[in-house]
């Protein structure tokens, strides 16, 4: 989704619709700290077994600090997906001409050199789905003013802002 490489706004990122159907449910935790690297991690070995149910929510420790949290449900009408852009993006660029959809798009014959940007279309797919996640705070459960809770109300407001206005 980051569009840093897409400086001109010329390119399209195609979402493979079949991946939305097939995405298996995932377990998600939103941590109150930044882990600097994105990589595989033995969450099930260290984190999950340490989660304890307390009277007023969940408790766990991470790097020796106490985290308190609770389950947050994805708002009604929405679905949660984890998406990854296809890793072969660079390769795809080189293979641009052979890629099926691009050949279909190119209605002007094969002799004409293909514009460079055609080769930069990429694909993205859902790798997992979720309908809830665990929200964690340091020492205390994130309160009602937490930014992420505000963000979760956005879809309802967006629906109002973008609804067609009634005719006179």
């Amino acid at each position: 989704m980051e569009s840093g490489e897409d400086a001109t706004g010329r390119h399209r990122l195609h979402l493979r619709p079949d991946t939305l159907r097939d995405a298996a449910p995932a377990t998600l935790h939103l941590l109150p700290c930044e882990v600097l690297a994105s990589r595989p991690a033995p969450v099930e070995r260290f984190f999950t077994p340490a989660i304890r149910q307390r009277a007023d929510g969940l408790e766990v420790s991470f790097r020796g600090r106490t985290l308190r949290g609770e389950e947050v449900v994805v708002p009604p009408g929405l679905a949660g997906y984890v998406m990854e852009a296809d890793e072969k993006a660079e390769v795809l660029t080189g293979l641009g001409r052979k890629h099926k959809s691009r050949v279909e798009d190119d209605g002007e014959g094969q002799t004409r050199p293909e514009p460079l940007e055609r080769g930069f279309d990429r694909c993205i797919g859902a790798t997992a789905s979720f309908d809830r996640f665990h929200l964690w705070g340091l020492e205390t459960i994130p309160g009602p003013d937490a930014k992420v809770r505000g963000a979760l109300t956005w879809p309802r407001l967006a629906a109002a802002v973008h609804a067609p206005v009634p005719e006179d």
Partner: protein
Amino acid sequence: MKRGLTFVKLVNPCSGEGAMYLFDIYLQKLFEIKVFKEKCHSWFINQSVQSDGHLHFATPMDPLFLVLHYLIKADKEGKFQPLDQVVVDDIFPNCILLLKLPELERLLHHVTEEKEINSRKYYKYNKEKTLKWLEKKVMHTSAALKTNNINVGARVQSAYFSGDQVSSDKEEDYIRYAHGLISDYIPKELSDDLSKYLKLPAPS
């Protein structure tokens, strides 16, 4: 066009910069992508860690806001033009996707005058109609804020809301807050005009 969902970069009608949108080519719908970002957050996703704690939202977008951006630009020429000559963009050429949205023609009368010559339609931006349309949007949004019990007072600030801070939830506060939400989709100049049109006092 084939079935599919496609992310494209189009203009942000408020800032004029690039922003991500999602087109559902099958349903012919436009969605806006917003990202929740907050410092010091990361995800655990199954057996992996994702360094940034971003949360993306795809929510339905009124395409008229985007077309309005082009109509206002084209209005400098001061003449009626067919839509495919209005929605033109060297920087964001994917804007042609907007012309494929079936509801667009029905919506255009909210913000334009139109003429039909030889069964081809020509449009021209109309500011008075646009302000009326925006006023309806503000009122509808203000009502939604109330029914959703959104606290428009000073204490609550969510990820996206740039509304002015006020001390209590009065009618005027809801309208001002809704005006702030709508202003994220229109140029600053039009937002100021809308504020006057709604007779909102200048924020102190």
